[in-house]
C-alpha cells in the first residue's frame, strides 16, 4: 500500500441508485489523475466520499497512513486532502484575501483567548496566515493579487474558479481534488488551466485528481485517466489507452454510436 490515496471496493448507494459501485482507485504523490465519465457516473460522489461528505457503504479509503472512513470533512482536510467544488462555492461575503485565509484554518491554532488578548503568538500566527494566503493568491500571477480586498462575489467567473483553487491550496494539502475546474472557461482560459495544474504539481508537489468533461484538458494534464460509468470503474490507464477503450466509447456515445464509429 504505497499509494498516497488508495480506495478499495468503495460503494455508495442512494435509494435505488448505485452511485458508486466497488471502485478501486489510487493516486500517487506528484501524480495527476483525470476522472472522466458521463453525467451521473458517480465522479462527484466519489469526491464527496473521499472528502468525508458521504460515508461509503462499503470499502476502504487510506490516505498517507490515515484511514479516512469515518473521519469528518474537516479532519480529512487536516490530514492533507483539499478540494474545489463543481459549482464554485466561495464565501461570497468575504474578501478574496479572507477566503484564502480561511484555508489556513487547520494549520493554525488561535482560539477565543488568543483573539481577545491578542497575544504575541496570535499576532505572529495572523501574520503567518496572511503571508500564506498572499502566497497562495500570488500563484495565480496578477489575476487575484490586485483584487485581494474585493468580495469574492465581485470576482469574474474565471477568477472565482482560481480563488477556489487558491483557497484549497491554503490548506497546505498533499492531495488536491478539482471538480470540473475548466467548466465555463473559454479556450484560452483552458490553456492557462492546463499550465496551472502542471505548475501546481511541479511547484507545490501536490498529487492532483481532477474530474473533467473537457477532453483536451484531460489529455493535456493527466498522467493517468480513470473512466467511470454507472458508478463502476470501466477503464484506467493513459489517456490514449482509455480513449481507445471500447467501453468508454460506448459510455459516451451509446452502443449504436460506437458501432457507427467502427
Amino acid at each position, binding site marked *: 500500500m504505497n499509494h498516497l490515496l488508495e480506495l478499495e471496493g468503495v460503494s455508495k448507494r442512494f435509494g435505488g441508485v448505485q452511485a458508486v459501485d466497488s471502485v478501486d482507485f489510487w493516486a500517487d504523490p506528484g501524480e495527476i489523475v483525470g476522472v472522466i465519465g458521463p453525467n451521473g457516473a458517480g465522479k462527484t460522489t466519489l469526491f464527496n466520499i473521499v472528502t468525508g461528505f458521504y460515508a461509503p457503504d462499503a470499502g476502504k479509503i487510506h490516505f498517507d497512513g490515515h484511514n479516512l472512513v469515518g473521519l469528518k470533512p474537516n479532519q480529512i482536510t487536516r490530514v492533507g486532502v483539499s478540494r474545489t467544488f463543481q459549482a464554485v462555492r466561495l464565501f461570497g461575503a468575504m474578501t478574496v484575501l479572507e477566503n484564502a485565509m480561511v484555508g489556513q484554518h487547520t494549520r493554525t491554532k488561535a482560539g477565543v483567548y488568543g483573539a481577545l488578548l491578542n497575544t504575541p503568538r496570535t499576532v505572529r500566527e495572523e501574520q503567518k496566515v496572511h503571508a500564506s494566503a498572499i502566497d497562495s493568491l500570488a500563484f495565480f500571477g496578477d489575476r487575484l493579487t490586485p483584487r485581494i480586498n474585493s468580495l469574492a462575489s465581485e470576482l469574474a467567473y474565471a477568477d472565482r474558479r482560481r480563488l477556489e483553487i487558491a483557497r484549497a491550496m491554503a490548506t497546505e494539502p498533499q492531495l488536491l481534488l478539482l471538480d470540473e475546474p*475548466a467548466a465555463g472557461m473559454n479556450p484560452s482560459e483552458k490553456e492557462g488551466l492546463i499550465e496551472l495544474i502542471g505548475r501546481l504539481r511541479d511547484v507545490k508537489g501536490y498529487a492532483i485528481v481532477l474530474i473533467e468533461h473537457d477532453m483536451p484538458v484531460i489529455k493535456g494534464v493527466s498522467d493517468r485517466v480513470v473512466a467511470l460509468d454507472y458508478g463502476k470503474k470501466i477503464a484506467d490507464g493513459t489517456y490514449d489507452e482509455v480513449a481507445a477503450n471500447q467501453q468508454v466509447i460506448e459510455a459516451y456515445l451509446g452502443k449504436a454510436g460506437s458501432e457507427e464509429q467502427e
Partner: protein
Amino acid sequence: MNPTAALKPGLIGGTVVIYLAAIGMVERFQDRNVITGVVGLGVVLILLTIAIAAYTAARKGRTPMPTGALVGLVAGGMVALITLGFEGLINAGVDVRGMFVSITPGLLETLEFGLNPALGAIVMALAGGTTGLVAGGLVGLKDEHLRSSIVFAVSMTLLISLGEPILRVTLGNLGIPTNWLYELGGLTIAGTIITLLAGFGLRWWLMGRKEKRQEIAAHMPEDTRRTWGRASLIAAILALIALPWVVGPFVSDVLGTVGLYVLLGLGLNIVVGYAGLLDLGYVAFFAVGAYAAAIFTSPASFLVTEEGETFAAAGFTNIWFAFPFVVIIAVVIGAMIGAPVLRLRGDYLAIVTLGFGEIIRTLVLSDWLAPFLGGAQGLTRIPAAPPESFDLRNPQHIYYVILAFCFVAAYISYRLADSRVGRAWAAMREDEDVAEAMGISVVRYKLLAFAMGAGVGSLGGVFFAAKIGSIFPNSFGLQVSINVLAVIILGGIGSIPGVIVGAAALVGLPELLREFGEFRLLIYGAILIAIMIFRPEGLLPNKRRQRELHEGAGSAPVELPEGASPA
C-alpha cells in the same frame, strides 16, 4: 412633463392625510406645539405628508427647477384638495363616526386651522400649494449647497422642537437658559427663526469646508491622524460619561434600557451576525443571566439557609461576586442548548431555538420549579450591591455599569470578528459544507458561537436584575427575542455600531415617543417598515454586507453555472 407623475403621489398623499386624520393622529398631535401659537404637530404632520408627496412627484420626473416646483404644486395641491373634500363630506353631514370615532369637531377645527370653514379651506389650499411648490422646487434646485442647507435647517428645527422634553432638561442641567427657545412645549417664534438660520448657516458653512476638510484629511500624516482619532475617541467617552448627569434621570433610565439591549444585541450578533445561526430563543440566555443573578443574591432564593443566613456566607452577597459565576453558568447552558441543534440549519434551527426560548419561560413560570425560581411571583428583593454610594437602582448610576459592560462586549465582538475564530464563523455562515471542507469543525464553532452569545447575553440579564431589583417570568417572553433580533437587523447584521444604533432606535425611540400614547407603536412600525424598504442592509451596516446587497452594479455576471458541455 408627464402630468400623471404628480397625480399618483398626490393621491397617495391625500389618502395618507385622511388616514392620519381618521385614526385621530392629527387631532391628538395638534396638542403638541411645534412653534407655539403658530403651528401644532398635527398640522406639521399634514404639511410633511404634502412635502413628501411633492418631493416624490418631482423626484420621479427628475424635473428641473420651474417644472419641479409646478409638479410639487400640483401634488401638494391634490393632497390639500383631497383633504378639503374629506372635510367637506364631514361638514355635509356624512356620518362616519360610527366607524371612525376619532373624526371629531376638534379634528375639523384643526383641519380648518381654527378658522371658519371657508377661510380654513383657503389657508389649507394655500399651505398645501406652497409646501408642494417649495418641496418640488427643492428637487429641481441646481445649487446643491442651497438645497441641502434648506432641508437641513428645516429638519433640524423640527427635531429640536420635537426633542423639547429632553433638550429643555438637558440644556437646563447645563445651565443654559431655554426661555428664548421653548415655550409651552414648542419653539418660540424667535427660537424658530434662530434655529432655522443657525441650521442653514451651519450646513452652508460645513458644505463650503467639505472639500477643504477632505484635502486636509488626505494630506494628514499618519500619526497626526491617529492623534485625532484618539482625541475624538476620548471626547466621545467623556461625553458618554457626562451624559446621565446632563440628560437627567428619565433619559438616563432609557439609556440604561438601551444599554441592556446593546448587550443583548452584541451577544445575539455573535450568534446570528457572525456565525449565521438564526436564534429566535435568545431570551433564554437573558433569563438565565437574570435568574442566576437573582438566585445568588436574593434573600428570597432557595440558597438562603434555615437560619436566615444567605448564600452570602460564601461571599455571594452581591451582584459583583455573582456575575462571573452567572456568566459561566450561561456559557454552559448556551453550549447545552447549542448541542442538540448542531445538525439543524436555517429555518429549522430558528424553530427549535424558538422552542427553547419558550421552554425557559415555561420553566421559570412553572410550579415545579417555583421553590427555586419563584414561579409566577418571580424573585424579588435582589439586594443593592456595595458600595452604598453607588446605587444600582439609580438610573444615573447603573448607566455606568451597563456602559462599561457594553464596552467590554463591543471589544470582545470587535476582536473576535477579525480573528481566526471570526473567519471560521464567517465561513460557516456563508457555506457550512465548504467551511467544513476547509477544515473548520462546524460542531465546535457552532457551540462556541452559542456559548459566547449566551455569555454576553447573560450580562444583560444580570444587570437587568440589578437594575429592576425583582424579576418576573413575564419579562422573558418571546417579545424580547424578537426585539433583540430586530435591533441587530435594523442596525445592520454583523455590525457593532449597528447594534448600538439599532438599540437606540428600537428601544430608545419608543420610550421617547411615549407622549404620543397609543400612536407610538404605529409610528414605530411605520419607521421600521420604511427603514427595511429603503435601507435593507440596516442603519449602520457592516461594509461587506452593504456591498453584497448592493452588488448588482459592480459584479460580473456569472457566465456559466455548472457542468459545461462535454467536449
